[in-house]
């Protein structure tokens, strides 16, 4: 009996003791993070429609609240603000999805395609009431190869506000000239773009900015002669990129740097000078970019470019685009250029005696405001959301660049504007016979109307390039915010 008691006690010590000793620090760290650090994690939702009007899809990205006044950091610059010609319509509205199924509207602020980052701002009218819990980036804790990291991710199906995590280690630190270093981690984590990266101690040390597909698939591997060789199938693979908190804080501390505007040249219908086109045009060598159209009031127009010119050099560098996929490199160079600096472009210009070579000096300008960058105004009294007219919008709708008005982006069902017959997409040019050239004029007219409580509210709108009058006699007693 005594011996049995001793054996059992010994067994208990053997079982209990190691359990106590082997308490998992990673598990504790994860529990701690899940309990305290998920408040800044949101989902950013928007529709990405195809430029040709077909299909489209709903996009959900991980977002991080980075300031108490509603700035939201999101990874996926090209989805949030697709470059012109990328085949997608620039999204016009974003929803920030908080835990508890709370949604707030947000507006695009800026992007950096190189770092794959975009910044949104929760609309002030909503931002005031939102209880924000911004993430605190820790620039003091450095990331080093081999370091253990915990990445948290909000599950896209947000019904239960679930947060998942992954544990990994830094594999490589890649210095990037002129840009922040890139940190790569062990493993390839799909869908973790935009997720915060924590050190085991709980400090926020980085942010996942992207995942690149590698040539090496997952599959099975073995070491042969000191080299890794794939022996099994599998796809995907690649590497996950992380930007450290130092770089993030650097950008966030200088919004102008973060919201750095792309440069533009102001040409459209760029086309690579393929072998076939070169032959047909009588140009000796293929390689170059044919300008389809020079946009009005653009740097290209000021520089004297003409439709049909073939760009074959930029600042001494040969533009050797032989296929349309080579366009991207030139477009990227222009986008990343510094506004105001002059550049020399070598051009082949068509004439009666064939093409002649010439040099053109061009000063790249800052690209015009996009649809996403202009602030949307919500007229709650008449149930409208409006945006100022942008060059982007006017060009894509074949409207004169000097068009005046405000564009309706949303009409509340059964709101007074909707009852009048105003539709999303209309451009309001006049209200109650007063010109409404911009948002300030609209607000002024509305303010007067709310005081005067005029019997009829008539809008002169431009719909599909045609002028049209729509009118409503509102029941002023039921107009929100109408003056007494």
């Amino acid at each position, binding site marked *: 009996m005594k011996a049995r008691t001793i054996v059992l006690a010994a067994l208990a010590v053997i079982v209990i003791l190691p359990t106590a000793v082997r308490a998992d620090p990673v598990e504790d760290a994860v529990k701690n993070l899940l309990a305290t650090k998920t408040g800044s994690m949101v989902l950013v939702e928007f529709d990405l429609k195809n430029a040709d009007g077909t299909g489209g899809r709903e996009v959900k990205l991980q977002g991080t609240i980075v300031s108490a006044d509603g700035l939201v950091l999101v990874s996926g610059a090209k989805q949030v603000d697709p470059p012109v010609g990328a085949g997608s319509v620039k999204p016009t509205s974003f929803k920030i999805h908080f835990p508890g199924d709370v949604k707030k509207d947000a507006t695009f602020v800026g992007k950096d395609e190189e770092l794959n980052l975009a910044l949104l701002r929760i609309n002030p009218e909503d931002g005031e009431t939102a209880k924000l819990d911004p993430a605190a980036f820790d620039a003091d804790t450095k990331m080093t190869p081999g370091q253990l990291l915990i990445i948290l991710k909000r599950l896209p199906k947000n019904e239960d506000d679930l947060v998942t995590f992954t544990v990994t280690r830094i594999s490589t630190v890649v210095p990037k000239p002129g840009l922040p270093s890139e940190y790569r981690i062990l493993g390839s984590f799909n869908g973790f773009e935009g997720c915060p990266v924590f050190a085991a101690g709980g400090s926020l040390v980085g942010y996942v900015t992207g995942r690149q597909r590698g040539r090496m698939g997952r599959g099975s591997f073995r070491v042969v002669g000191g080299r890794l060789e794939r022996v099994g199938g599998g796809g995907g693979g690649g590497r996950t990129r992380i930007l450290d908190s130092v770089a993030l804080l650097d950008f966030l501390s200088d919004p102008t740097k973060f919201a750095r505007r792309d440069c533009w040249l102001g040409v459209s219908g760029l086309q690579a000078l393929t072998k076939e086109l070169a032959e047909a045009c009588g140009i000796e060598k293929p390689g170059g970019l044919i300008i*389809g159209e020079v946009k009005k009031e653009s740097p290209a127009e000021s520089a004297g470019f003409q439709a049909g010119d073939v760009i074959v050099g930029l600042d001494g560098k040969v533009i050797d685009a032989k296929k349309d996929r080579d366009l991207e490199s030139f477009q990227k160079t222009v986008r990343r250029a510094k506004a105001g600096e002059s550049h020399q472009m070598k051009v082949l210009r068509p004439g009666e005696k064939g093409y002649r070579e010439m040099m053109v000096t061009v000063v790249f300008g800052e690209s015009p405001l996009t649809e996403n960058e202009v602030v949307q105004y919500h007229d709650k009294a008449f149930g409208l959301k409006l945006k100022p007219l942008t060059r982007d919008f006017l060009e894509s709708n074949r409207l004169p660049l000097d068009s005046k008005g405000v564009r309706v982006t949303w009409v509340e069902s059964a709101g007074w504007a909707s009852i009048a017959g105003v539709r999303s997409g209309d451009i309001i040019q006049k209200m109650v016979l007063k010109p409404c050239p911009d948002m300030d004029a609209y607000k002024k007219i509305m303010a007067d109307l709310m005081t005067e409580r005029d019997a009829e509210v008539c809008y002169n709108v431009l719909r599909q390039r045609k002028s049209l*009058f729509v009118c409503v006699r509102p029941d002023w007693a039921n107009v929100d915010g109408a003056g007494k």
Partner: protein
Amino acid sequence: MKWLLGVLVLSVGLAAVPATWAAEVENSLELQAAVEAARDRVLPCLVRVQPISELYVGGRKVKRSGFGSGVIFTHEGHVLTNYHVAGRAKSLLCVMADKEEIPATLVAGDPWTDLAVIKLDLDRYKGHELRWAVLGDSDKLEVGEFVIALGSPYALTRTLTFGVVSCKDRSLGVRVDLPGEMGLQETGQFNTWIQVDALINPGNSGGPLINMRGEVVGINARGGAGMGFAIPMNVAKDVARELIEHGKVRRSWIGVEFQALAKFADRFVGDAAEGGVLVGNVVADSPASKADIRPGDVMLTFDGKPTHARFEEEIYPIARMVARTEIEKTVEVTVLRRKKHVTVRVTTQDLGRAVGEDFVCEAWGLTVKDITPSMARMLALDDDQGVLATGSLSDSVASKAKIGNRDVIREIAGTKIRDLDHLKEVYAKVTAAKPTKVIMKVLQGGRTPRLLVLNLAEAVKEPGKSAKPEGSEK
């Protein structure tokens, strides 16, 4: 005594019931007799129309056969039908009410009202004596009036449906596209519709809507969801006369779109005047725009005639009045602008065709369409220069060069293309010269300029591939 009184009352009641029933039967028999009488006046004039049309789609010319209805309205064998039935027909076969089949030819069509006139080849008619229908006065129709629709729904000949006029001047209030015209041709800007509950199905199109006097009061054109819509006969009579006499309907255009004034009267007119019609849109570079007529003006008179459209239905007669003004006539127009009278002089212009002619560039496997000013406006093009690509054959020169549907061809081999006739000329020259490559400048989707290369060397080689070389036959 009370029981005697009860028996008396009961007897009287029993006698009264059969009397009412008999009266109702009598009434319905009278109605039936009236329907049959009306039927007998028009049914012999009904024809089933089978058009064989040529369509230019997908890079080639194809023949299509359809079916519809029509009504004979002259002793010469003219048949009134819909433009969307017979307006593009190359040949026509008609089945008469006596089941005899005879050919017919297209006289002319008017897409703006969706009407067409065809003429029966009476020399080939071996049936009964020809009958033609009496055309009635559609303005005299009343809501609730009995009407009969005759036609060939789903090609089922000699079908009669019966109903009432549900609305005599329906404005559909939306853009109505003419079927088969790629959304480039509107219809119904010059007429309201007679809405009926007599069943109108596919194949009824072009058939007559008749009143109980056996007069044709409308041409059935559209139907669905238990509602049918017919073009009023007073509009159709005018159109038919023009089509027979001139081969087209001559219409003027000033480039104004009108809106009814009801909702805006206080704002635009106030106490300044009675009547008028609101100018909603003024087309750029149109006669109205040149005369400085502006959106928001209220047009009070046109060519000395007062205009009044307080409600939407009243716009159509004004549109018709403007259209029926002599082409290139300078008229005085009085408008109310900021409650002051302003008189301007407008010179009308030919409305012209909405949709351009088609052509197939067979060697390239490409179909194209002429661009009319109306199409240029609809497609938001800067001008009407060039031609519109409407399709390419798979594996053809055009499809390999990636010419897309709705691309605008602006230049071929360095020659700027003005219109379809010019394209035909350039196409003939280019194909005769047999070059291996031709460069073409297009506006993709009517917008983005792009250079395309037609690789004609392949087209030349293609036949050679399938044909064996001469030497191998031996």
